């Protein structure tokens, strides 16, 4: 069993190594070092950092009052649905949001007339709005979970000592949030730094281009491989260093089940409760508006004459890619964790750390960087128009494996802590062991699978490099519709994708809650 795990680790590592072979200039491709002193390069790097920093800062600041409202007023109307909406907003494919934002705030947008003649969604404002929309719900959930970790005893002591609101904030609330703030900022920064679809769709010209989009443009439009390589290395150095730094700071927990089981905490006054309700309602409205903005576009379309086949094919392609990549990722993750579990059981800590790192090493390089590396390596060897989809599936699978590992690892290690001695004592064979382990892991596997489907469904970066027009995915089709101002079709396709994702989120939350209750 451990041998199968080692094989899975070797396979994943081999793909990363091959991608790096492409990046280091295999087959005579060389870095374009002159680019490093070019004004265009500097503006792209600066814009990538600026938009990511501002997006992360805004998301964190705006999330704080929302998390406080949810924490101090657990009786808010439709609270659970709001938290589900937060999950959906964070994981849904960005092209849905982009369609909604264009319908709402674009040139012909529903509320654009009220925003003044100078309003322009394209460029930094649009990118910031989209990134804040996507990451604020994540920040809300992280901060809420941190607040929920404040023990009752702290609040009781504060009440005994008659601490005022400011003292409670300074002495209890802020220390609970502070430890998680830097990792949270770093994580959102990395997400925005590696964000591709948002900048591709809403970025405008060289002044609003990030490294990811510049890589895509130099490879697909200009076919300038040295420039693509230089940009990819820059992206890897910045994003990879940030990831390694974040790893040291520790991750942010956000998918924990909302708990209102705390028995005692201060009850806000009437005015504060009204403020909480206002913040809560405004945020819910802000999250819902881009989704509701899809409706007028759909109403414009004559649904009876609508060419459903045009979106049915891409929808099936997306589902198929996601299903294969998700299943493969889950199986690979399960196998990759076997050597780690074995090393931990044997008490070999260093080896366990090595296996742990190997199982999540794919996180270091962004999807675009790995795709470009492999693309450049394979281009002279293979007909990528023919084999491209195979690599779309393969790379999607390998790049979501670390998330599957992170989902399965705690449950499997808990199983080992609780039962490994018993399993060994009972001398269970492979089949008997799986019979015992599967019921324990079933919910975790289904939950992870739903998350893997969501992650793979939304991919645009890998498809933009390896995809072919014969096998268009739903997000790429939406991008095509939105790019040619066919907002009606874009809205219908977005709604379909949204419904599929909402179903997966429901599945995810349903099984996750069951797992927590078990």
């Amino acid at each position, binding site marked *: 069993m451990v041998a199968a795990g080692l094989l899975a680790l070797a396979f994943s590592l081999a793909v990363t190594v091959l991608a790096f072979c492409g990046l280091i200039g295999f087959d005579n491709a060389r870095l374009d070092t002159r680019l490093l002193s070019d004004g265009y390069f500097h503006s792209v790097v600066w814009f990538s950092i600026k938009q990511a920093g501002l997006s992360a800062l805004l998301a964190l600041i705006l999330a704080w009052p929302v998390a406080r409202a949810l924490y101090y007023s657990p009786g808010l109307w439709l609270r659970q649905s709001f938290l589900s909406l937060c999950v959906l907003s964070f994981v849904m494919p960005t092209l849905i949001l982009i369609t909604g934002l264009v319908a709402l705030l674009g040139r012909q947008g529903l509320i654009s007339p009220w925003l003044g003649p100078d309003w322009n969604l394209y460029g930094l404002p649009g990118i910031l709005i989209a990134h804040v929309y996507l990451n604020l719900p994540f920040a809300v959930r992280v901060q809420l979970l941190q607040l929920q970790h404040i023990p009752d005893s702290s609040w009781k002591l504060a009440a005994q000592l008659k601490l005022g609101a400011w003292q409670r904030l300074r002495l209890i609330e802020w220390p609970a949030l502070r430890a998680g703030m830097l990792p949270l900022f770093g994580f959102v920064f990395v997400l925005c730094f590696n964000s591709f679809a948002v900048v591709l769709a809403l970025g405008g010209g060289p002044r609003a281009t990030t490294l990811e989009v510049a890589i895509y443009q130099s490879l697909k439009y200009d076919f300038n491989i040295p420039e693509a390589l230089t940009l990819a290395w820059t992206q890897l150095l910045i994003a990879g260093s940030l990831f390694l730094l974040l790893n040291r700071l520790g991750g942010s927990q956000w998918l924990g089940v909302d708990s209102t089981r705390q028995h005692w905490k201060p009850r806000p006054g009437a005015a504060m409760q009204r403020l909480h309700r206002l913040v809560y309602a405004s945020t819910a409205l802000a999250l819902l508006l881009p989704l509701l903005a899809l409706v007028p576009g759909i109403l414009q379309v004559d649904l009876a004459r609508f060419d459903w086949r045009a979106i049915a094919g891409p929808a099936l392609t997306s589902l198929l890619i996601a299903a294969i990549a998700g299943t493969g990722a889950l199986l690979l993750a399960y196998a990759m964790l076997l050597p780690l579990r074995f090393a931990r059981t044997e008490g070999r800590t260093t080896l366990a750390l090595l296996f742990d790192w190997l199982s999540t090493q794919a996180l270091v390089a962004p999807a675009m960087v790995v795709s470009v590396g492999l693309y450049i390596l394979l281009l002279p060897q293979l007909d990528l128009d023919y084999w491209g989809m195979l690599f779309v599936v393969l790379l999607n699978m390998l790049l979501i494996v670390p998330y599957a590992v992170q989902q399965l690892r705690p449950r499997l290690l808990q199983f080992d802590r609780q039962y490994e001695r018993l399993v060994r004592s009972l*001398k269970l064979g492979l089949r008997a062991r799986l019979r015992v382990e599967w019921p324990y892991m079933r919910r975790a596997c289904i939950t992870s699978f739903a998350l893997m489907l969501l992650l793979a469904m939304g991919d645009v970066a890998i498809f933009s490099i390896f995809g072919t027009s014969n096998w268009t995915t739903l997000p790429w089709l939406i991008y095509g519709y939105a790019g040619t101002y066919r907002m009606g079709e874009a809205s219908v396709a977005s709604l379909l994708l949204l419904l599929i994702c909402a179903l997966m989120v429901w599945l995810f939350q349903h099984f996750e809650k069951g797992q927590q209750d078990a």
Partner: protein
Amino acid sequence: MLDIEDLQVLRDRQPLRYSLQVHRGEILAIQGRSGVGKTTLLDCIAGFATATAGRLDWQGHSLLGLSAAQRPVSMLFQDHNLFEHLSVADNLQLGLSVTLPQDRLQEALDSLEVAGLLTRRPTELSGGQRQRIALIRTLLRPEPIVLLDEPFAELDPHSRQCATDWTRRTAKAAQKTLLMVTHQDEDVQQVADRAIVLQRPA
């Protein structure tokens, strides 16, 4: 015979040393103050703690080179003896020989008054009920060496009487070599052939 001679195990970097012999079919009670190393001895025999020196032989063959899965040992831990997500019936089947007659299992369930619990999950049982279920599985497994770590700790007086009677009867009938850690003198009297008291290392 189970022959343990100058067996040394490191626990928290402190060496613990054991020397004892147990004849085939004999029931030995192991007593001693908390922290003296009773559980560590059982763990070492079962293959969950590594010996750094000494000898551990069964019927003349060393067990030290064997993994936990290869040793002829069936062990009852202090806790976590049942998989919480499986039914009692499923838990009981694990590790039992396929040739075990059904009437032997039924007799055990009846003797320990747990026959009506087969469809339940361990989380639905009391501590004493869980302990009796685990005890049945441990003793009915085909392994010749049985290690019990405080097997009757959670039982009320009536259940304790049933469990001790059944344990001795079953172990003797199957010629099991049984080592049992206990703090209770009455367990020693009712189950064991003899007892040893482990001393804290000097």
